[in-house]
């Protein structure tokens, strides 16, 4: 077998991705009215294209930034990669384990203890029980919550909850790590610890997919970047170059050929 250099292996491949949301045009006040219109086939929908024909290739080990204004389609694109949304048309291929840091501590229940929540949250992320058994102590140690594992989550501070969520979500090195906005996890010391972990992942070959409004952050951390505007991909290239273009005209309509 020919070994392909790490950097050239494709981690995320997006081919002509389009995503549309359908929302009812009129606000039907009663179910009856809706049902009648539905049967008559007269329910009108607004079709909103959150993403239009986006093609993008991201390689293994890249720290890739995504920039754009509110509603440009950044979150939709992340969800397509994280498998939460299926593209309306086009094809997405993601290789390996994806860890979405979109929602830290998804499904946490505040009446359950820290321990119970680790198992629940881990299961939501697709970890098996044995995996959690084996790694439980390390997760808790990273979150620095050894003294609170068996206390209900409602007694935790918000920082403690976030630490627990981060520790579980990033315990296993993923092949693709999706980071939405800057992590507001705990205090400064813990935040540094989080950043250090993410950077170590990147060195080990994890692709980091970072979304931010902050062009400074994109410019300082990312190797490459893409710029979305009104659902269209306006530019892809070196982070500094893309950020500069974005600053010139953040609302640019797609300059790329249709």
């Amino acid at each position: 077998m020919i070994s392909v250099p790490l950097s050239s292996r494709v981690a995320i491949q997006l081919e002509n991705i389009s995503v549309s949301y359908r929302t009812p045009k009129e606000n039907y006040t009663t179910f009856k009215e809706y049902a009648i219109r539905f049967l008559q086939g007269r329910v009108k929908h607004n079709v909103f294209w959150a993403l239009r024909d986006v093609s993008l290739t991201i390689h293994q080990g890249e720290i890739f930034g995504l920039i754009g204004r509110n509603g440009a389609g950044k979150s939709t694109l992340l969800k397509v990669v994280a498998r939460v949304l299926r593209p309306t048309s086009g094809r997405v291929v993601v290789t390996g384990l994806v860890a979405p840091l979109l929602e830290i501590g998804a499904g946490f229940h505040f009446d359950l203890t820290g321990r119970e929540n680790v198992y629940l949250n881990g299961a939501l992320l697709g970890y098996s029980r044995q995996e959690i058994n084996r790694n439980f102590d390390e997760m808790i140690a990273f979150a620095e919550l050894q003294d609170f594992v068996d206390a209900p989550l409602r007694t935790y501070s918000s920082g403690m909850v976030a630490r627990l969520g981060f520790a579980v979500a990033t315990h296993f090195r993923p092949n693709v790590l999706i980071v939405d906005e800057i992590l507001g996890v705990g205090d400064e010391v813990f935040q540094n610890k989080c950043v250090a972990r993410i950077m170590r992942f990147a060195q080990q070959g994890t692709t980091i997919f970072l979304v931010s409004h902050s062009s400074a952050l994109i410019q300082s951390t990312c190797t490459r970047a893409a710029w979305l505007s009104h659902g269209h991909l306006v530019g892809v290239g070196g982070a500094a170059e893309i950020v500069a273009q974005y600053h010139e005209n953040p609302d640019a309509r797609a300059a790329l050929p249709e």
Partner: protein
Amino acid sequence: MERTHLPPQVYDSSKRGPLAISELRELFRYRDLIYQLVKRDVLTRYKRSVLGVAWTMLNPLGMMVVLTLAFSKIFRFDVPNYPAFILSGLLVWNFFSQTTSAAINAQVWGGGLFKRIYIPRAAFAISSMGTGLVNLVMALVPLLLIMLVTGTPIRWTIVFLPVPVAILVLFSLGVGLLLSTVAVFFPDVAEMYQILLSAWLYLTPIIYPSSVLPEQMRFWLELLNPMYRIVTLFRLPIYDGRLPTWGELWPSLLTTLMLLGLGWYFFTKKSDEFAYRA
């Protein structure tokens, strides 16, 4: 830390078999999630109460006492051992109404989770059934207790009980999947269903024996209300102490499998849209 024991996964949105099949595979992969969701629901339901999980047994028992008092004074049904009769019916009904409502609510209100992370879409509906099953099994304890106290013989036919229970679970899952799919698009269905349930209860021989019904009504209910047969089927091995005949069994089996198949197909077909709606 690496998850080295896992085979490399490749997610390719263009390569996917029929949804009805791939969802099964995904559920198997996420089987620990089902377990954790059931555990969460069983633990948290009574977490802050002093008696805790004991309420699972006290709840139907309390309802039985109320209904027995009410109906043995007002209407006099000619039923031997009315408390055991009503409690056995209530267990079935509680399972059905609670699990189907839970499946709908999880889909409508639990929709937030679907928008944020990937999990198999049917996980909530399945875990609702698991939670209901735990409650049902625990509630069998007071039922057997009542039978002992009131002198209703417990026969060996009780070993057949898993069959009607399985039919009940699969039927409820079918109904839950169908309704939760509809409820994602029309949330009002969740409210309407609660009204429907209260009517449905009276159209099912839970608190009255089917013998009080006029012949013609019995015929139509048996034909149109699958719960009618399922309740009867559940009572046979435990309350009546006999096995069902094949003729008593197959209609329920057929209805259940058809409904489940339809529910599963409809649910998985629409499941991609759940993340956009809800």
